């Protein structure tokens, strides 16, 4: 299904790498699959494997290795808060706890409507703008920095209403 529907995009991806090393395209193709399916299901592994002449195992093993690929669906929007050392020194952990409390979920959990998952993640290279988080959805990843709990909740509300901000 991917091969037919996204042919030109797949060709553009393959064109970036030497044809005899098209295995390199597996990472961008996993992002494509994730965009299409919301996560990476088993059929996507087979499709990508067929496109690149590698085994489904060689594709599937990457999904577990890399943090940004998911083998199962999560919330539509993953609110991933950096709680690593520099952000934590500037209140990120308290921010995360309070945001979760206000949303009524545990850290790592998903809201009842299935829209918002809140996770703690490692350093996002925004240490001077803590507290901050990135929102990952099927389309991509966008940063939201210098946040307060209120600004975060406002953003989440906008996401709920289907408005995406870059």
């Amino acid at each position: 299904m991917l091969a037919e529907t996204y042919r030109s995009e797949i060709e553009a991806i393959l064109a970036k790498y030497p044809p005899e090393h098209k295995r390199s395209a597996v990472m961008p193709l996993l992002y494509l699959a994730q965009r299409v399916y919301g996560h990476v299901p088993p059929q996507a592994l087979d499709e990508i494997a067929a496109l690149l002449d590698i085994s489904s195992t060689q594709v599937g093993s990457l999904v577990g290795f890399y943090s940004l690929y998911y083998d199962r669906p999560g919330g539509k929007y993953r609110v991933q808060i950096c709680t690593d050392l520099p952000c934590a020194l500037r209140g990120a952990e308290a921010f995360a706890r309070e945001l979760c409390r206000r949303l009524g979920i545990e850290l790592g959990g998903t809201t009842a409507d299935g829209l918002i998952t809140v996770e703690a993640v490692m350093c996002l290279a925004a240490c001077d703008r803590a507290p901050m988080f990135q929102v990952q959805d099927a389309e991509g990843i966008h940063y939201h920095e210098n946040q307060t709990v209120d600004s975060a909740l406002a953003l989440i509300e906008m996401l709920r209403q289907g408005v995406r901000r870059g």
Partner: protein
Amino acid sequence: MAEHILLRHRDIPGLDELDVYLKHGGFEGLRKAVTKMSAQQVIDEVKASGLRGRGGAGFPAGLKWSFLTPGVFPRYVVANADESEPGTFKDREILESNPYQFLEGLAICAYAAQVRTAYVYCRGEFWDLAQALEWRIDQLHQQGLLGEQLFGTKYALEIHVHLGAGAYICGEETALLDSLEGKLGQPRLRPPFPAAAGLYGKPTVINNVETLTNLPPVLTRGAAWYKTIGTEKSPGPKIFCLSGCVVRPGNYELPLGTTFRELVFDRGGGVPSGRRIKAILPAGASSTILAATDAVLDTPMDYESVAAIGSTLGSASVIVLDDSVDMTWAVLKTSRFFKHESCGKCTPCREGTYWMLHIAERLHAGRGSRQDVALLETVARQIQGKCLCALGEFSTMPVVSAVQNFRADFEQHAAGER
């Protein structure tokens, strides 16, 4: 240092637009290299400048390029934009706000290495700026500054952006190469080194974004000028990332050799009022933690001077801790980071980072004993000298240095006082 050389957009607004960049001398360095210099001459000039890698290792850039196996083609250059060290956000600012200087620098490196295809390996979280970078590369193609027959010569160059997917280990050179090849991002055995067998087994140069951003000014203004900045052994400007318990966190471009005191207090506004500075991690989480004594604060931030006081400058990601910070907690944070990011390939890092985290958790939660404090240090030392790559080694440095320099914090936890 009045003017910015790397964070030049702070002096020139709109520098992220190509026409502005070109108006301010953009791509003159590449033009000079491609039209007037041989590849070897470019390598020699960069060697002469003394530019050292800015990704953390501090290895002389020109020397690294000269290790490329002669006569073996194709070759590759990969820009390491996998910036994931906690406390580091300098490459991001360059890529967002001064991207063309970086791209020009990458092109200069590619020319020197006789490379026709270069990749930018960008961490996956930099999704937005990676899209923008691809658009900018298109702009350069349209302007004839990338692609075939650059500046009317036979030299051609393609640059592609490759997005990572959330693994700090992919910032390690050989793990980055495996990741770029479509495999798990796990480090390779060395030798062979990438200069001999890198991407797809071909000679490859991997340089940090900041390192490459230095190249256009080196070419346009000369190695001799470059050496007037910084110190003799560590020349040039450096972007210092200041974060943690400071009033003004952020990127500060300063000459190498600036002291910690100047960075933290003069530029960074010092620690919040009512607090006292306690410790400094000069190299992000991969630091030998320094107690913030006067001697330390007056140490120049260059590779030699920091090594001389028993630490490493690394990527100059300076994280400041004040006296509100419990070092057991700080070690808990760094240990959690390394355990999460360990690729798992070698036994001591895979098992040791897990073990260190659990001891740190136990201590922090008040369930640990004095023996656990000793055990934490022992386990860290047991990992040292055995790992396949630097991640495992670095994971031990904050642990050992924190226990040694701030034993009281740990013992208070052990005694149930915290």
